[in-house]
């Protein structure tokens, strides 16, 4: 089976006020189908930059990056957007839910950009909310939900397109340990169903739950287990 993501010597340099600031300095990494990887490192280690690259939100300035077998360097912005839509599911620390929109319509949002009609979007979103245990919350807006519930809505949104990889950037960072644990359990059960999970965290305990860990420092992978 094709690996979900293959990064080979990937670097990313930002140009700020005429200065070249390297955020990633040659990272190689393979995320196999169904993998469960934790990326750990202090802030500034380049783990967020890696996350954005792996998710096709940004392009590397060096090296090659294959997402779902496709080289991102050859893709147009529209093709990259389509790739994000079909292959990647994002889960953010701050949930990123649309405030004035119900849980159901938040979950259905990615399907809007596939041209899927409202009725089908809602049906698929309802099924996904049921999967994350929020069948009774479909009509609620984010401010009517707890933090844990909001993150589960976000996970349902990431899943609704049937992606091969979930990229979770500090998914428990804004949650207490109990609800954080529930969210991790949910991610793990999804992983057990075959979705690869890449978990970015600075929490060693959280990272320890993954199948393997990648430790980053100064834009390089310094340890992989």
């Amino acid at each position, binding site marked *: 089976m094709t690996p979900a993501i293959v990064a080979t010597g990937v670097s990313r340099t930002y140009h700020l006020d005429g200065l070249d600031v390297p955020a990633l300095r040659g990272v190689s990494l393979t995320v196999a189908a169904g993998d469960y990887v934790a990326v750990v490192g202090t802030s500034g280690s380049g783990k967020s930059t890696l996350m954005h690259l792996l998710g096709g939100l940004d392009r590397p300035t060096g090296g090659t990056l294959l997402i779902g077998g496709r080289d991102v360097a050859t893709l147009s912005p529209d093709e990259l957007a389509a790739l*994000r839509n079909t292959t990647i599911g*994002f889960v*953010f620390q701050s949930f*990123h839910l649309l405030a004035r929109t119900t849980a159901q319509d938040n979950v259905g*949002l990615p399907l809007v950009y596939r041209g899927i009609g409202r009725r089908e979007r809602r049906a698929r979103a309802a099924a996904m909310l049921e999967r994350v245990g929020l069948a009774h919350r479909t009509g609620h807006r984010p401010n009517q939900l707890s933090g844990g519930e909001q993150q589960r809505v976000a996970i349902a949104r990431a899943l609704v397109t049937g992606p091969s990889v979930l990229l979770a950037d500090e998914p428990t960072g804004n949650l207490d340990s109990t609800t954080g644990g529930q969210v991790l359990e949910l991610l793990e059960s999804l992983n057990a169903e075959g979705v690869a999970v890449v978990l970015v965290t600075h929490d060693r305990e959280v990272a320890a739950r993954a199948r393997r860990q990648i430790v980053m420092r100064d834009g390089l992978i310094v340890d992989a287990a």
Partner: protein
Amino acid sequence: MRIAEAWRVALDALRANRLRSLLTMLGVVIGVAAVVALVAIGTGTRQQIERQVEGLGSNLLIVVPGRLEAGAAPTSSPLTLDDVDAVNRIVGDPTRVAVTISSGETVRAGSRTGFASMQGVVETTPTVFVRRLDRGAYLTRTDVSTGRRVAVLGAGVSHDLFGDRDPIGRQITIGGVRFRVIGTFEALGQSLGVDRDSEVHVPVTAAQRLLGTARIDGLAIRAPDRERIAELSAAVVATLAERHPDTDFSAVTQEQILGVLGDILGVLTGVLAAIAGISLLVGGVGVSNIMLVSVRERTREIGLRKAVGARPRDIGVQFLLEAVLLTTTGGIIGLLLGAGTALLVDRLSPVPAALTWWSTALAFGVSAAVGIIFGVVPAQRAGRLDPVVALRAE
């Protein structure tokens, strides 16, 4: 993204900031309302003038001395009744020719005084122009040939001098000379800015004697049909020029008068509409401004939408539709407001107003165009946002 979905998102975004959306629309509302109302008033005025000029009678040709040009010096008329005889020979039908000498005079009946526009005319006037009598009779050929001091009063003069009493057979003085009233006109109101009800018609011969002159100011010919107007015009002007080599003569038709007035009115309406259009433009700038604010405020939303698969175009279209929705909603409100204003003006003031389908369609189209033009920059900016940066925005 489906377009229906994009409309829904745009509508939702505008609803989220109701007051701000309304205030932003206001500029467009005022601009469109002003354009619609001003064009309606311009159109109404034009139609009224057309009705008035056509109400003078059909196929008219008016011959006056001098050049009809802006800035031309006024010319004293060398025309006399002998010239009218010559013109009668060309036209071949004296009932189709009318003459005028006019002068503002004080009129008096008993203790009551008024001011009238005395018109020295011939008996053909009511058939050449359209003029209906209210009471009594008009001047006769004998009245004209003998210079009898009889007068037909305009409705306003009659009212000033006699109130509701019947003036027929009564004496009045015009410029101190006694005349007998033989008829009154139906009320006509204003025509081309002239109060037609303040006219007093007397035989041209009597008027000439009163004014101590043999001249007439000009003459009017009613052509038998439209096709003969040009030919008659040329023949009459040529004859008069031959008889008075030192003077230029001009002949104008109703169409020319309408053309000149229409041009003036068109320019005036255009200038007013342009001023109103500027306010529409300012409204557009306001829309642009608020859309930029909206893009900034919703940067995180844009980042998220991009993360889940929105293309730059999807985001751009969403914001463009939002701007268009703002301006077209403003356009519709402005249209209703402008149309309402025009109807009120038409109903409650002497200024006429007429709505035309093209001005309303134009106003709507322009408001949509304003949305597109002023929405493009914010929409492009939104579409081009870097999702990484956008997701991090506060």
